[in-house]
């Protein structure tokens, strides 16, 4: 057994290994310097600015408030200025330059940086300054703020190596370094590499064979085109974008409730697959809503800026978080398009780059005009959001609507027939016979209150579909009454003549406990109402299902009289988690009137309607912030709720509860208790509107000739079907402008409540300006981002693609192109790519053509090199920044899982749709947030591509996190690439991988016969290549050993081959399958399998 406390001395690590391990670090330890060696001419941007920035700008940079001695070194004027008799920098004369004197001074009071500074200059850096000044102190603007220009290609010796202009730049640098490129990768390696890169999945053996058999000079070209056309390409590309867009399926704070943004995710996939030009891709996501007559797709695109987290916590101060959301939009925009760290300027002027705090808030102003509440919705989307039907749903909806229109027309044409039939029926009616009729559809309970009994009760409640588990788990606690309970409390049962028969007579003390009925929740549609005749003081609870605690704390729903007005509350916690509305007009005392409330399950005050005598009432909204379940186990009460102080005084009759949000027509019918025969007795020209409508409704429902009733019924059911369909359409949170723009202020120290000066929208002055005539809004800003004079967007974008393919960006700090970012290894190449991206010379490419620029990269000889590492190369360039070899690095979290599903044949390739919940260890959500269980999916949802896995921000899927997937809490431009034992444990033991191994074993057993053939088959599926004889020997011997083991252990055998929910192939021998599962499991763990090489 290994000892826990190791007391062995550490071994010195050989230098070559140290260098190798540095690949693992993202951080501040730099292996090979990105910049070229500093012999010869000193380049300001490459050699001097990074030192100035890192060491000096903190006190002598753009931030005015922090500037020491009024000396500014981040611009030419400041650095070359004459000051008090000395000049900081005198070109050509290091000896006369105050800068050199101060950085070399031996006097501690004079020496710069001062002794207590965090960063110091080393002798090499001081020497660089001296040489730079001696060579004339040429000052240049920071490279990334100067727009790239197309330049002549560099000349190289080994011209035959050049496949396209990319290679000229790579080779020129290699030749300067005295290095040569590696030989081309073999075709098998190459097709696997490019397939993984462009589609996120490996090639099939058939695709490999076809490529190997294709001797034509453009064989590879054809493969690349095929891959770029594959719909898998869009999925692969979208993953990167989702990281940048901090896309997730939850809101990110506290219990971290679900939200629905997948329609935007699917928009991204579609945009990549359609090769939407990057400028359009940008404009639609930034400001699709502001385009003229925006399409639904263009509005969906704007969800990009709503993917930030949203806080629904109880005590939130909305203004505080409203500011955070806008800040997030600014920071994300700056990182994604500009590669700038503008986040710093939220609190103060930038320390390194020429951006002021005021400019931050000028950008902030573009995104600060959204009608949103800083307190987000806990479960579901936060306004503003729109319905976003998919294309097929739109087709279905159009079909439904045209059906409905046709049915409406047909029915309207029946009008004269109906009139005639009704007259005939009325004539035939015995008007002396009492016919009482009212709305009974969706009636869940009715209390006639004629005696101590009850009727008409069926407690069935609907849940809004699509939500995971928003309700609490507290169930079946004490105090719940059976559904048929009915009991007067705090007094004896008393009845009086009522509106209909008798009524409950309540004296402000006694009330009725009506048991477990009406247990509605905040997602349910429901309605309830009664006849009331209030007496005496104008207060008291009419109907409630709420805790009988004091009114302020009571949770539940209720309708009561308050100061004569009718008040409805749906309440979790009064003051911050409730809907409360009241009628503007009071009800009348000492008179019968019908009162009713309806709620549509929207969790919004506007979803509550209140009716008196069948007429909708004007409402005053006192609180509109319902955020979680208000269900209680307390009974439904008539005349009480919320403690003994709030009891009803007067008569209550005919209490009704419906589990639907009744229409105003239905409420009108309920409020009109006149019998049908009585209406008929009234002469037709004297009948009121309500009378006519009730009579017609009754006639159509009960008495019309069969064909008319059928026509009516199908019309009604089609209406319901259409309404339900519309209601269940997916929604997505979008950007939207307020009519009156919100004022924006500079926030001192970035704090939401510390307003400084008011600011107007504007772009930073150190970058290009908005075009003349461009609207100064988000749309203008979006176009500014992709303006051809923008020096950053194209560079930042192509650099990210480069990183995706080659492992490291030309600028390694893909998120920071400012002066603290790393300088490009191949600045001219970066510029060439940026220019080529925006205004391509390549035939068939359009401006901002993503597929074309990717193709240019993968067609280069640089990309197609072998990725083998030689000791010499490793020593010279451990991080492969110079690209004397092809890229070799671990696959992403998503690709590793997708590949396992794909090669086993388990993968279900369905594009888009709501996120899915594959296997996850039990209890993972619950143990840190009690009220949220993980309802794992089954069937095909277990085998979708990983990009569709449900992403809960506070508990991200563990097998993704283990492989460095982005946390999706904020914009992330770059993922780490670590190598940890947790990854080994995941690949060896996680259900999805173990199941994939078993199914891959089944596949190889079915598709090949001998041990050799089976190993070969598995190798080709997982690694594209065939095994070597040594590898075959090792695995064959391994197989024999496993087989012998399982033959002796039948129980273990069955267990091993029963993992995962997919059905096992029963035709295969269990022991052989178990043994093969061990082999295929091993294969899926091979370094080569989880690596692109």
């Amino acid at each position, binding site marked *: 057994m290994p000892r826990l406390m190791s007391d062995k001395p550490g071994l010195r690590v050989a230098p070559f290994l140290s260098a190798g391990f540095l*690949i*693992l670090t993202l951080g501040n330890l730099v292996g090979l310097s990105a910049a070229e060696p500093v012999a010869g001419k000193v380049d300001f941007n490459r050699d001097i600015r990074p030192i100035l920035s890192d060491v000096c700008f903190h006190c002598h940079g753009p931030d005015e408030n922090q500037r020491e001695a009024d000396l500014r070194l981040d611009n030419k004027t400041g650095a070359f200025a004459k000051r008090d008799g000395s000049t900081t920098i005198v070109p050509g004369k290091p000896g006369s330059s105050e800068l050199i004197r101060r950085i070399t001074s031996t006097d501690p009071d004079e020496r710069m940086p001062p002794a207590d500074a965090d960063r110091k200059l080393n002798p090499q850096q001081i020497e660089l300054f001296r040489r730079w000044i001696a060579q004339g102190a040429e000052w240049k603007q920071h490279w990334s703020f100067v727009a790239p220009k197309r330049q002549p290609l560099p000349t190289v010796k080994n011209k035959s190596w050049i496949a396209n202009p990319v290679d000229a730049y790579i080779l020129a640098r290699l030749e300067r370094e005295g290095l040569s490129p590696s030989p081309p990768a073999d075709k098998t390696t190459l097709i696997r590499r490019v397939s993984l890169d462009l589609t996120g999945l490996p090639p099939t053996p058939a695709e490999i064979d076809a490529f190997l058999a294709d001797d034509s000079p453009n064989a590879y070209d054809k493969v690349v085109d095929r891959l770029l056309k594959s719909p898998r390409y869009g999925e692969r590309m979208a993953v990167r974008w989702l990281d940048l867009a901090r896309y997730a399926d939850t809101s990110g704070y506290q219990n971290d409730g679900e939200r629905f943004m997948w329609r935007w995710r699917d928009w991204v996939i579609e945009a990549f697959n359609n090769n939407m030009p990057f400028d359009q891709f940008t404009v639609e996501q930034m400001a699709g809503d502001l385009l003229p007559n925006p399409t639904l797709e263009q509005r969906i695109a704007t969800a990009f800026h709503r993917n930030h987290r949203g806080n629904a916590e109880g005590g939130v101060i*909305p203004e505080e978080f409203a500011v955070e959301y806008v800040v997030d939009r600014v920071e994300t925009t700056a990182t994604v398009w500009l590669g700038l760290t503008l986040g710093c300027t939220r609190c103060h002027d930038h320390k390194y780059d020429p951006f002021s705090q005021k400019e931050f808030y000028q950008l902030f102003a573009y995104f600060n005009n959204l009608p949103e509440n800083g307190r987000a919705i806990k479960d579901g989307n936060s306004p503003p959001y729109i319905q976003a039907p998919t294309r097929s749903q739109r087709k279905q909806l159009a079909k439904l609507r045209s059906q409905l229109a046709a049915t409406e027309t047909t029915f309207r044409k029946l009008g004269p027939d109906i009139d005639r039939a009704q007259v005939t029926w009325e004539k035939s009616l015995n008007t002396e016979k009492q016919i009482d009729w009212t709305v009974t559809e969706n009636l869940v309970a009715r209390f006639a209150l004629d005696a101590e009994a009850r009727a008409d009760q069926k407690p069935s409640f609907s849940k809004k579909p699509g939500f995971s588990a928003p309700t609490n788990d507290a169930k079946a606690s004490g105090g719940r009454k059976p559904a048929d309970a009915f009991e007067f409390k705090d007094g004896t049962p008393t009845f009086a003549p009522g509106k209909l028969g008798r009524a409950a007579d309540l004296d402000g003390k006694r009330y009725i406990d009506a048991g477990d009925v009406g247990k509605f929740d905040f997602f349910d549609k429901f309605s309830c109402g009664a006849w009331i005749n209030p007496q005496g003081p104008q207060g008291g609870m009419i109907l409630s299902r709420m805790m009988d605690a004091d009114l302020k704390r009571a949770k539940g729903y209720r309708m009561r009289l308050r100061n004569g007005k009718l008040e409805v509350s749906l309440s979790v916690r009064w003051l911050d988690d409730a809907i409360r509305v009241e009628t503007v007009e009071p009800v009348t005392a000492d008179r019968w009137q019908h009162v009713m409330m309806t709620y549509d399950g929207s969790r919004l005050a506007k979803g509550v309607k209140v009716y008196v005598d069948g007429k909708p009432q004007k409402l005053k909204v006192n609180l509109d912030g319902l955020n979680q379940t208000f269900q209680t186990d307390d009974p439904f009460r008539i005349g009480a709720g919320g403690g003994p102080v709030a009891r009803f005084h007067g008569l209550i009759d005919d209490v009704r509860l419906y589990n639907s949000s009744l229409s105003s027509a239905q409420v009108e019918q309920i409020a009109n208790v006149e019998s049908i025969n009585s209406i008929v007795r009234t002469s037709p020209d004297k009948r009121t509107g309500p009378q006519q409508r009730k009579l017609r409704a009754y006639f159509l429902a009960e008495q019309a000739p069969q064909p008319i009733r059928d026509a009516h019924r199908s019309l009604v059911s089609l209406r319901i079907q259409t309404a339900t369909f519309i209601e269940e359409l997916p929604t997505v949170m979008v950007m939207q402008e307020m009519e009156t723009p919100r004022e924006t202020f500079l926030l001192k120290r970035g704090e939401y409540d510390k307003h400084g000066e008011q600011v107007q929208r504007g772009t930073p002055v150190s970058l290009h300006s908005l075009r003349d005539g461009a609207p100064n809004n988000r749309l203008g800003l979006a176009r500014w981002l992709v303006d051809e004079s923008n020096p950053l967007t194209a560079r930042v974008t192509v650099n990210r693609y480069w990183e995706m393919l080659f492992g490291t960006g030309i600028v390694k700090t893909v998120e920071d192109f400012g002066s603290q970012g790393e300088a490009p290894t191949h600045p001219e190449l970066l510029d060439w790519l940026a220019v080529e991206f925006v205004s391509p010379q390549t035939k068939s490419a359009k401006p901002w053509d993503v597929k074309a620029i990717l193709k240019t990269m993968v067609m280069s000889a640089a990309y197609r090199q072998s990725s*083998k590492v*030689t000791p010499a190369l490793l020593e010279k360039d451990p991080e492969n920044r110079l690209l004397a070899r092809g890229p070799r690095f671990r696959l992403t979290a998503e690709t590793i899982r997708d590949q396992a599903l794909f090669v086993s044949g388990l993968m279900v390739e369905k594009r888009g749709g709501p996120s899915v919940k594959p296997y996850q260890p039990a*209890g993972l959500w619950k*143990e840190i947030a009690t009220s949220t269980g993980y309802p794992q999916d089954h069937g095909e949802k277990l085998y979708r591509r990983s990009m569709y896995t449900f992403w809960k921000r506070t508990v991200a899927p563990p097998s993704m996190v283990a492989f460095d997937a982005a946390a999706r809490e904020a914009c992330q431009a770059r993922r780490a690439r670590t190598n940890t034992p947790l990854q080994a*444990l995941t690949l060896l033991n996680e259900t999805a991988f173990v199941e994939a191994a078993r199914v891959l074993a089944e596949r190889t057993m079915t598709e090949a016969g001998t041990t050799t053939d089976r190993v070969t088959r598995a190798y080709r599926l997982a690694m594209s290549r065939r095994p070597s004889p040594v590898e075959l020997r090792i695995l064959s011997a391994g197989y024999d050993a496993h087989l012998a083991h399982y033959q002796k252990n039948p129980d273990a055998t069955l267990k091993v081959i029963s993992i995962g929910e997919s059905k096992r192939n029963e035709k295969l021998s269990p022991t052989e399958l178990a043994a093969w599962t061990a082999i295929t499991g*091993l294969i899926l763990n091979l*370094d080569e399998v989880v690596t692109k090489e």
Partner: protein
Amino acid sequence: MDPFTENQLHINRRHFFGNAATGIGGAALASLLGGDAMAADKAPTKRSGGLPGFPNFTGKAKRVIYLFQSGAPSQMDLYDYKPKLKDLRATELPDSIRQGQRLTGMTSKQDSFPVAPTKFKFKQRGKSGAWVSELLPHIANVADDLCFVKTIYTQAINHDPAITFFQTGAQLAGRPSMGSWLSYGLGSDNADLPAFVAMVSGSGGQPLYDRLWGSGFLPTRYQGIKFRSVGDPVLFLSNPPGVADETRRRVLDDLAKLNRLKLEEYGDPEIATRLSQYELAYRMQTSVPELTDISGETKQTFELYGEEAKKPGTYAFNCLLARRLAERGVRFIQLFHRGWDQHTELPKGIGKQCADTDRASAGLIADLKQRGMLEDTLVVWGGEFGRTVYCQGKLTKEDYGRDHHPRCFSIWMAGGGIKPGMSYGTTDDYCYNIAENPVHVHDLHATMLHCLGIDHKKLVYKFQGRYFRLTDVHGNVVKELLA
């Protein structure tokens, strides 16, 4: 020289992997468990990983056990004794005290703010005479080992930002947690266990989030590993059902052979790292179960921590595990106990919380002390903010509730470098404002790092062009707290 063939490939397996801290395996461990190989090279003998030059000076503490009381315990019901409040019961909190302080959305619309004194009795304890509530009899018994800080304050007023602030030094998600900073700076003292372990207990109340032990922008290998009480203590630790250890060993051996062939052919050092990670994974499969197996603990131990300590998932069990992790050299052991958010029915709720945590918290202190480990283990107890002196909801004779209060609250610290038997800082008579010696969250962090021998201004990481640190651009070491 061909380094691979000469130095690695021809070494036989046993030698290659047999010694955890040597050879390529050890180097790679360093990179996972809290540092990088470069630094490991220069690190003291037993340490793997960490930054060169760290610790910056000799600190008294080698490790931290942080007993985080999530939800925010009420300071005036536990530690901050305010006898004068009795007479002020049910009077309105004066504006001169509230000073326009912002309130949460839960009580800001309340029409009155009646003072709710604690209903619990306080006594002075030990030689130091620290005031401790009757709710915490066991902690009271070790009061002379503790340093009470009554004047911690924060800016955050809601749970999520506040707890994130305590763990990462920033209210918004994205920064590394304190344990990650320490793994990064100091590395690990045990090659077979993670440098940073988090454990969760308590149910209900405020939820927690993975980011609280996340590595933020530091490489993910510095993130805390959450030990779970159900299923595998570490995710995916156990072999799948039916996979015997011999099968696993055979697979790993063959896997190593094949990976080594690849290394020979391709020369990518990443392959060597992966080889070693598989061996470490295999060793963790033994070392973690051994760690969580408490069957060898004595009766005396359970007398200290309470019988609850036998039940995985309880706070007491986690305290015991914290000691076992500390013994094994784990750098940062972070416990979270949920359920302290008593907006209503505080007396009942806080009583239950104290019953669940009091004995084990004190037991841990006593246990560390008797093992001689308290001097180099820094223990911290506390929540994310305090609670208001005014009542949330209805104030009755028996009942009251309290809202969030960031302006002052109490924590205690003990062990490694901290002065025992003292109370620091005073609050006003309403327990609403700090009267003297404020200690900000950043100051606490700076002080904790100081105890570990770290200058908080030196533990930095460059991200997005800026040097970040746990204390952001703030923080002062509170020298008065130091032993």
